[in-house]
Structures are given as C-alpha cells and as structure tokens.
C-alpha cells in the first residue's frame, strides 16, 4: 500500500542528488523526444506508403463475388456492377467508388502477341480511386465510354512494338465461356513505376469490357477509397448492409494486398533494433543511478530494516522512485516531443536529398509525421518500462541486505 509518507519519501529521495537525477531524467527526456519524433515520422511515412500503394490500384475496400479473391474466375461476378457502384456512391458521400471488370486475354499487335490483364474501368470514376489515370505519360486517359479506346503499360507497348494510335486485338474467354474478341486503339501509355502493371495492364472502358466479354452488365469488383485507411470498420459495415447479398463480400486492403502490411512490419522491426540501442543506453543509466542511490543509503536502509521494515518494502520504494523519475522523463519527453511533432505536422519536414530519395518510392518530397496517441506514446512507454526493469536489480539487492552488516557499512 502506498500512502502519502511513502510517496513524499520517494519523491524527496529523488532530489537528494539533484544533478544525478536530472542527468538521468535528461537522458530519458532526450531519448523520449527522439523516439516520439522518429516514431511519428515513421508512422507518417508508413501512412504515405500505404496510401500510395493502395491508391495505385487496390483501393481501401473492394466488393467482389465470394471466392473471387482466392481464385479470380471470369464467372465470379457482381451483377450490375455500375449500378452497385452508383448506389454506394449515393449512400456513402465522402467515399470514392468505381466498378471494374478484370480478365486475362491475349493482346496482339501487328507483329507480336502477349498475355495481358484487361481492366475495364469507368473513365469518369476511375481517376478518383486510382492514381493510374494520372500516370499516363503519353497520350491521355480513356474519356468516352464505348469508343474502343485503350491505355496500356509502357513496357507492354515496347514489347508489342506499338504506340499511340495503333490497334490491338484482344482474344479471350467471355463470362459465359464463349470465345471473346475485340479491337481497341491505343490512346495512352501508362508509366506507373510498378513493373507488373507496366508490363501487363490494358485498361479499357467498362462498357467495352462488358461488350467484349459478354458480361451482361456484370463486373468483377467495386473499389472504394475511404477517408481513413486505418479505420475501415464503419465503412465496411455500411457497404455490407448495402450489398446485402450472399454472393458478394467486402474485403479490406489487408486481405487484398497481404504483402503490404508485412513489408511495413519488416521495416518497423529493423527500426526498433535501432531504437532498442537508445533504450538500452537509457536503461543502463537508470541502473547506474539507482545502484549508486542504493549504495549511498546502505546505512539508512540498515537502520530502517533493523526497525522491522521488510526488504521487499524498501525494494518497492526504490522501484517507486524509479517510476517517479521515469514518469518525469516521460511527461517532459512527450510534452517537448509532441511540440516538435506538431510543428512538423503542420509545416512538413524536408531536407536536402529527401526529394531525390522519396521520388524513387513515389512518395512526396515533404514528410508529415503522424500525430496519434500511439505514435506519441509508444516510444516513451517502452522507455518507461525499460527503466522500471533496469531498477529491478538495484531493488533486488536490498533483498539480500542484512541490517547489521548494512549499519556497519561506511
């Protein structure tokens, strides 16, 4: 039980050696500020990475036919995909929605043929859910539904030896299993930076897609971009209520693109190795401080043990002192760290070379740290716990202390 005499005793014990305590608290504050800043920046970068990766093509949520995610068969479709997209758009303002059809086909130019991914998109809605329309480097994106236009990846264009204005013949299998064929002419060349997309994508309008592949108004997915990719529960529930059919399901991006989260987590692990070094250093400084503080008080501890105080109680006192010290480090570190984070949250952070570095990953040249409870508290909380853990050894030393020997100590 902790009552006020014990609390004030612990607090005053801290300030017996103010310089020593401030040095230790200072180390905590410094590392806490650094951790708050680095982790917030890291979270901010991850958010941009997630957002950019998902905006490329996957979106935050997709409605698909049951089973399509495991085996994308032509026949696993959503009826009236454009109509469903329109209903979702109406019911969920603030979210962007577009319907798509997807098929594998053989694309032939005058000289060559390649297997390609045909993507049927709604030209008026696709640019709001995907960044691909903005990555058309030559020509333009699709504009009129039903004009047999196509946008194709830059690598595919090179492989097929085609350019703007050329024709492509598409051969595949329709939804009903029939032979499907169509002719489109190229209006745009896409350079997304994603090898897979640039090598295999052929985007045509959904209307053309439905014609060529005998879709009868069906599509393969309805893509949604929401306002917060980390907070999809409500949006998912809403979509589920609207589709209300046992044949379609909603998948979030983590299910659609499982590798994304894993690669971010791998990056997080390597960052924490670096943070661990910092945290271990702080923990050692606490260990040192509390060992000295226990040693300094050997006689005093001997006397109170002789009076009948249990070593366990004195050990808890040392832990309480450490908790107070670490709590102070946490408060000051989080306060200053949050200030720094909030500043860059508003004004962004850039430094020479950053733009060149981030451009490779299709990231913006100015970084904005995230400022969530987790990003601000995670590092300092770990430091706090590490400091407490470091005080266990000095506290445990008291368990072996004999009052008579302690009182004889100089």
């Amino acid at each position: 039980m902790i009552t006020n005499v014990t609390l004030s005793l612990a607090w005053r014990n801290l300030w017996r050696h103010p310089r020593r305590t401030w040095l230790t608290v200072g180390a905590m504050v410094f590392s806490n500020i650094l951790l708050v800043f680095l982790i917030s920046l890291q979270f901010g970068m991850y958010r941009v990475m997630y957002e950019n990766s998902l905006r490329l093509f996957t979106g935050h949520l997709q409605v698909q036919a049951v089973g399509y995610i495991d085996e994308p068969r032509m026949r696993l479709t959503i009826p009236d995909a454009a109509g469903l997209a329109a209903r979702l758009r109406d019911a969920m303002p603030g979210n962007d929605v577009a319907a798509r059809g997807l098929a594998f086909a053989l694309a032939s130019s005058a000289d060559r043929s390649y297997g390609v991914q045909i993507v049927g998109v709604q030209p008026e809605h696709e640019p709001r859910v995907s960044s691909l329309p903005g990555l058309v480097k030559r020509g333009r994106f699709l504009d009129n539904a039903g004009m047999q236009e196509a946008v194709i990846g830059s690598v595919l264009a090179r492989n097929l030896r085609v350019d703007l204005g050329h024709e492509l013949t598409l051969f595949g299998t329709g939804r009903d299993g029939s032979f499907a064929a169509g002719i489109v002419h190229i209006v745009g060349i896409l350079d997304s930076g994603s090898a897979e997309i640039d090598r295999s994508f052929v985007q045509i309008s959904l209307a053309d897609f439905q014609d060529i592949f005998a879709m009868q108004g069906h599509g393969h997915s309805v893509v949604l971009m929401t306002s917060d990719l980390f907070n999809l529960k409500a949006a998912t529930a809403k979509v589920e209520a609207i589709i209300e059919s046992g044949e379609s399901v909603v998948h979030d991006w983590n299910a659609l693109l499982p590798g994304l989260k894993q690669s971010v987590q791998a990056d997080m692990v390597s960052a924490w190795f670096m943070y661990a070094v910092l945290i271990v250093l702080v923990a050692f400084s606490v260990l040192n401080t509390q060992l000295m503080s226990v040693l300094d008080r050997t006689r005093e501890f001997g006397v109170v043990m002789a009076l009948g105080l249990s070593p366990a109680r004195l050990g808890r006192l040392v832990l309480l002192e450490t908790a107070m010290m670490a709590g102070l480090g946490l408060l000051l570190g989080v306060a200053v760290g949050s200030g720094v984070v909030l500043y860059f949250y508003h004004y962004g952070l850039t430094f020479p070379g950053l733009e060149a570095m981030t451009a490779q990953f299709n990231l913006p040249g100015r970084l904005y740290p995230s400022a969530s409870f987790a990003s601000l508290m995670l590092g300092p909380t770990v430091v706090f716990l590490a400091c407490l853990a470091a005080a266990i050894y000095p506290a445990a030393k008291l368990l072996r202390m004999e009052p008579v020997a302690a009182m004889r100590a100089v």
Partner: protein
Amino acid sequence: MSTVCCIDLCRFFVQGEQTVRALDHVNLEIDKREFVCLSGPSGSGKTTLLNAIGGLDKPTSGEVWVAGQRIDGLDKADLANMRLHHIGFVFQAYNLIPVLTARENVEFVMQVQGVTASERRDRSMALLKEVGLEDMEERRPAQLSGGQQQRVAVARAIVSNPAMVLADEPTANLDSVSAEHLMGLFVNLNEKHQTTFIISTHDQRVMSYARRLIGMVDGRIVTDEIR
C-alpha cells in the same frame, strides 16, 4: 515474568585463523520495567548482545527469549515483524531518514505498522511533545541538533508501546548536556510507560542513571549489580 532471557549465549566471529568470541556463554535475565545499562570497553560485546536480544543477529549457540517467546530460531520475516511491533531501537547515529521531517520520521514507522493516518498524526505529535520537540515537528534531521535527533529516534522507538527499548551507545555523539537530557528522558519513559530499557554505553555519566549495571569484558558478563 522476565522480558529478556539469554541462556548460554555464544556468538563467535571467525576471521581467518582467529575466532573472536564476541559473546562467550552469556547468561542473563532482565525483568519487565527494568532500566539496565550494559557497560564495558569498546569491543567487549555490548552491540553483539543487543543485536542478539533484538533479533538482528543469529547467535552461534544458546537461547534468546523475548517476552516468553524463543526468538533465536525464528526466520527473518518473523524477526522483522517482532522488531516492528515489540522492540524499539535507538542507535548511535544515522537513526533518521534525512529527507523526512521529525514528524514524518515517526509516522513512517507507524505507517508500516498499519496505523491509520489520523491516528498516526495524533500519536506522532503527542510523542514529539513528550520528548520535548513540540515546535520542531516540521524540521528535517539536518536542522536539528544531535541531541534533538536522538530524541526523535526515541519518539519513534516508543510509538508502538514496545516491551523494551534497546539503545546502543545513544549518547556517544552527544555533548554532556544533551546526553544527560536524553538519559533523563529514558528514565521518565521507563517510569511512565513501564518500558524496559537496555542501554549500552561506556560513558560513566550514563551509567550513573542505571538501576542495574551490567559490566562486560571480552564477551563475558563480569559484573551485575542492582543499585
């Protein structure tokens, strides 16, 4: 009934080839309400005897009985509990926790004993008044004289109405006026609360307060006189 009883008590310290006989077959009985001085030159075994009686140290052989209970076989936790509730200690120096005020020093022990906050406050104030420090309860040890510090230690020693108070050379660091003041306080408390006092000293003036004077040499009791 005796408060303290030592039977054939030995405490040897082995140091290399040498064995120091700090207590050498001590037999001793001290009754309730007695006011005893242990005297003897430095190294004669006074501290070792007090430690054995107070359960701070395990004897090499022999028996120690306190208030009808044999304590030399008790485990550490039981000994600590016995000290907390039944024995008051006053040591030569460094008695007080320097960051706590006089009142808090007294209260801290009561808090450990599980006394409620309001009772702690009342009792600590009353005890500080009894030892003549009623205006100094908010002072830290460093702001008190050596004699005043020892009186705070005495107040703390008697908070739980212990069966006995063990004081190991309590006046060794005091000037003669403070020493006499402290001894007067011991005598008063002994009479008023009927607490047994066992005080070790090699100071002649302190011995003059004793009603029973035990003399030790080389770990043995050589004189035992009631005056």
